[in-house]
């Protein structure tokens, strides 16, 4: 699914948040949006999700303007503790989006268990989210996002509150999902390393108010990405430095 932002502007009252954002995310691309804290990255994501109407400009998906929450869209929020429903089991959380597809209960459960196995949580289906570690909870949230096979996946600092080891595991899970499902992914992060490691392309926003795109950089790294070797590549180091300078200079 192709995502187009055309001269997108967003403001809270008189306070400008985003200014003149024009971007095209081609089908199947994993785009990372980086920027200093509070620059409006989350607002950008909420606008694409149809949770906030655009004040200026347009957002289109495959040529159709976004007015409400679009079909075939899924979102993973940073705060997994709040985004999952604690009164439902892991399996019921994951099966929840399937209700609108009109599947029978048994089919919903089977589908949820299949996707849980995919994210490495086969044993946790009958437990409740709060019985799991933070990393496992975010895996549940990712499973819930993937269960409807979205064409566009939005991720709002999805690994921001996880420890380093867990974050690396989930970054690799994301890359694996992206490779096999070929979903268009928009990932917002403040972690420069992460953006270069997972992204096909990195866009840097300036600090607010009225954030603009200050760098739009394709990420071309040789070979299959790997936490140890990729991060040591001279290409990786150079890209990270460019993104870092853009974030700091912005």
């Amino acid at each position: 699914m192709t995502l187009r932002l055309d001269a997108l502007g967003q403001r809270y009252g008189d306070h400008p948040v985003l200014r003149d954002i024009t971007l095209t995310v081609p089908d199947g691309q994993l785009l990372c949006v980086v920027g200093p804290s509070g620059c409006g990255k989350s607002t950008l994501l909420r606008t694409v999700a149809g949770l906030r109407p655009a004040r200026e400009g347009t957002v289109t998906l495959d040529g159709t303007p976004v007015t409400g929450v679009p079909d075939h869209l899924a979102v993973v929020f940073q705060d997994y503790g709040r985004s999952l429903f604690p009164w439902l089991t892991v399996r019921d959380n994951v099966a929840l989006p399937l209700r609108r597809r009109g599947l029978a209960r048994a089919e919903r459960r089977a589908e949820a268990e299949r996707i849980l196995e995919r994210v490495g949580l086969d044993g946790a289906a009958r437990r409740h989210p709060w019985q799991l570690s933070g990393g496992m909870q975010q895996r549940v949230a990712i499973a819930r996002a993937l269960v409807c096979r979205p064409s566009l996946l939005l991720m709002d600092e999805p690994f921001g509150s996880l420890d380093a080891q867990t974050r690396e595991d989930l970054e690799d899970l994301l890359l694996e999902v992206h490779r096999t499902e070929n979903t268009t992914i928009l990932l917002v992060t403040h972690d420069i390393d992460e953006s270069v490691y997972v992204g096909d392309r990195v866009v840097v926003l300036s600090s607010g108010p009225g954030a603009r795109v200050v760098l739009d950089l394709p990420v071309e790294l040789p070979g299959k990405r790997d936490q140890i070797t990729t991060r040591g590549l001279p290409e990786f180091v150079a890209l990270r430095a460019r993104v870092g300078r853009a974030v700091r200079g912005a």
Partner: protein
Amino acid sequence: MRGEQGQGTARTSPVSRPAASSSAAGPASRRALLPRLLVLLLTLAVWQAVARAHGSVYFPPPSRVAGRAHALWFSGPVRHLFLTDAAVGNVLPSLGRMAAGFGIAVVCGIGLGVAVGRSRWAYALCNPVLQFARAVPPPALVPVFVVVLDFGTPMQITAIAFSAVWPVLINTAEGVRNTDPLRLDVAAVLRLHPVERLRFLLLPSAMPRIFAGLRLSLSLSLILMVFSELLPGTADGIGFTLTDAQSRSDLLTVWAALLLLGVLGYVLNTVLLAVERRLLGRGRTTA
């Protein structure tokens, strides 16, 4: 360490917080059972000793009160579960009125509470009225219902329902209004149908508050049940038993009725707590 923080936020999510106290009461109450029983027995023993030493007809010892309660209500035939005709004729009608009034209050309170809590302007508009309605001492309204509906069961049920509805309504509205905005976004992104959103998000997340309201409403129902039966035009019920015994200067029966009311209140509250624990689950309360 950052993962720990994440779990911390999960644990203190607004849903779980109010319920935490009731779960803490679980194991703690079992541990404290013996001392509490001792205090109860000690109180009864002192009451017994003082009343016997005094020998006043106005202040009978608990053994005689219990004996009267047994003779009045629980000495019936086995096939009636030991209930006497007086129990069937007086306790059951009271419980029936209370159940009807409380039931109406629960249905209306939760229904209206969700409606008021969902809409910001409805909440702003209704809040002063709700606060006023809550502030009026419920028994003070009974004379109004007597005038409008005359004496009898419809008036009694209305009085109970009208008094008990406010705590449920206000707490439901408050609980629904405080639904985590991020979870509302999640529901929007998952494109949950309004009914599904109610079932999977709004009601579960308001549930601890709703139960707080239910507990208040239950005790109000008991109070209004007795109070409405104290009025003339009643021919049965525990309240009627009270006024009837009082008119015959039968203080032992008055005390027995008070004992019965205390036990009823305690049992009903315990049942409600058990339902709450079951519905909110062990998990919800420690989440």
